[in-house]
């Protein structure tokens, strides 16, 4: 009996466990920077494709830019999320998470948050550059930056649901796109509309508030679905 109780005393607190997970995952990302750069390169490449397809006329590009930059950010987030849990699933780390005394809800939340820092946040940082390349009016840049900053959190957390549900499958990227893109509709609508409003010198605050509401909904509820998806695949393994 005494052994059991001392073992439970030595159990690290939940906050400490999440912090350690945060540090470990961040270290892994710093040691493999290409994982962070690939979605960025993808974003720049797609930005190159639009003028080639639509023509280089600055006025046309400026008109379409809010929607285009948002779609680029959305696809980059989606692509970056495909492999989110794959490696941890294959090497058994996820099974250990499940066995650990810490609540999966917070472990999952921490893991996805680190992933957002490495993908959504980085994409947010370069989005003004992409927007300027597409000739967006300068007054829309702050709204664009903020809307992608807030919106990408929802995008990554919703995308992680798809990544968790397909983690045990071999060719999952098309399937992930098919199940996740319809769920991105509200975020895209309000993100692009907010930037559009800012290009016309209108206030974008209400759009950002709705995006923030989506963000809180996604951050609080998505970990439940992610946990469910991971558990299915772990039980199968």
């Amino acid at each position, binding site marked *: 009996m005494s052994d059991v109780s001392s073992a439970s005393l030595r159990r690290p607190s939940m906050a400490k466990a999440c912090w350690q997970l945060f540090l470990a995952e961040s270290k892994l990302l710093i040691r493999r920077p290409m994982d962070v750069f690939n979605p960025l390169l993808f974003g720049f490449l797609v930005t190159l494709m639009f003028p080639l397809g639509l023509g280089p006329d600055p006025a046309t590009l400026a008109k379409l830019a809010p929607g285009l930059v948002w779609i680029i950010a959305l696809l980059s987030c989606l692509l970056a999320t495909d492999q989110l849990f794959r490696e941890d699933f294959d090497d058994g780390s996820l099974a250990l998470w499940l066995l650990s005394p810490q609540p999966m809800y917070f472990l999952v939340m921490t893991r996805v948050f680190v992933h957002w820092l490495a993908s959504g946040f980085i994409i947010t940082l370069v989005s003004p550059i992409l927007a300027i390349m597409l000739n967006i009016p300068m007054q829309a840049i702050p709204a664009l930056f903020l809307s992608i900053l807030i919106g990408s959190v929802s995008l990554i957390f919703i995308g992680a*649901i798809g990544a968790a549900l397909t983690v045990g499958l071999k060719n999952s990227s098309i399937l992930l796109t098919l199940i996740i893109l319809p769920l991105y509709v509200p975020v895209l609508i309000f993100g692009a509309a907010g930037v559009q409003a800012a290009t016309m010198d209108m206030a974008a605050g209400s759009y950002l508030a709705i995006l923030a509401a989506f963000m809180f909904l996604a951050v609080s509820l998505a970990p439940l679905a992610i946990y469910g998806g991971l558990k299915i695949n772990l039980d199968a393994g």
Partner: protein
Amino acid sequence: MKSLVQFFFKLGSPNWFYKVSSYLVPVFALLSIGLMSWGLVAGLLYAPMDFKQGNSYRIIYIHVPSSFIALSCYYMMALLAAVYLIWRTKMAAIVLRSCAVIGAAMTFIALVTGAIWGKPTWGTWWVWDARVTSMLVLFFIYMGIFALSKAYEREELGSKAAAILALVGTVNIPIIYWSVDWWFALHQGATLKLTEKSAMDSAMLFPLLVMIAATYCLYVLLILLHSRAEIIRSEQRKQWVKDLVK
């Protein structure tokens, strides 16, 4: 009360569901054939012509019922998903997969009939109207759930994944509908709007109600038939199925 609980408990067993449904199939087959022939004849031949749209409005006798079911099928699927994830009832998973297929088919019919109606009325096959767009998103959600349920080699895993995705969709669908409505209000152009629909004449409305009832019966019939086929497929190694085939 106890017998009611027992009834639902038994309904969870594929064997029992198969037996009970074999009595229900002919009932719903007769009901849907009867009501549908009545509704179609009344709607296509006897209902008066619309003074604005002429005969082209008659497609609502297929379009409206299928749109109804396209939406209500999702609620049923979400309910089954919750039942399956909580109680692990095998039958709930089988009917859930049937719902995804039939729901996708109904949404597709609603979209196609809408496009056919749009050509003479709006002058174009496709308009990015709020309801059309929401329906299209709903179609993709159904297809995503169906594709996910088929992606796993082990059927049980596919059903669980599909059930979770269906519940995620339940949270999302009202938000999607609301944002698409809002998006349409923001971008709405001056074109392509029918003048306000006057209250429907009862001579037109009655066949529509009959068709809605008929399509609901058809929907139940299709769910039963699809589920029965799925039961036979997934239980093919069980003794009772072997006895049945003999």
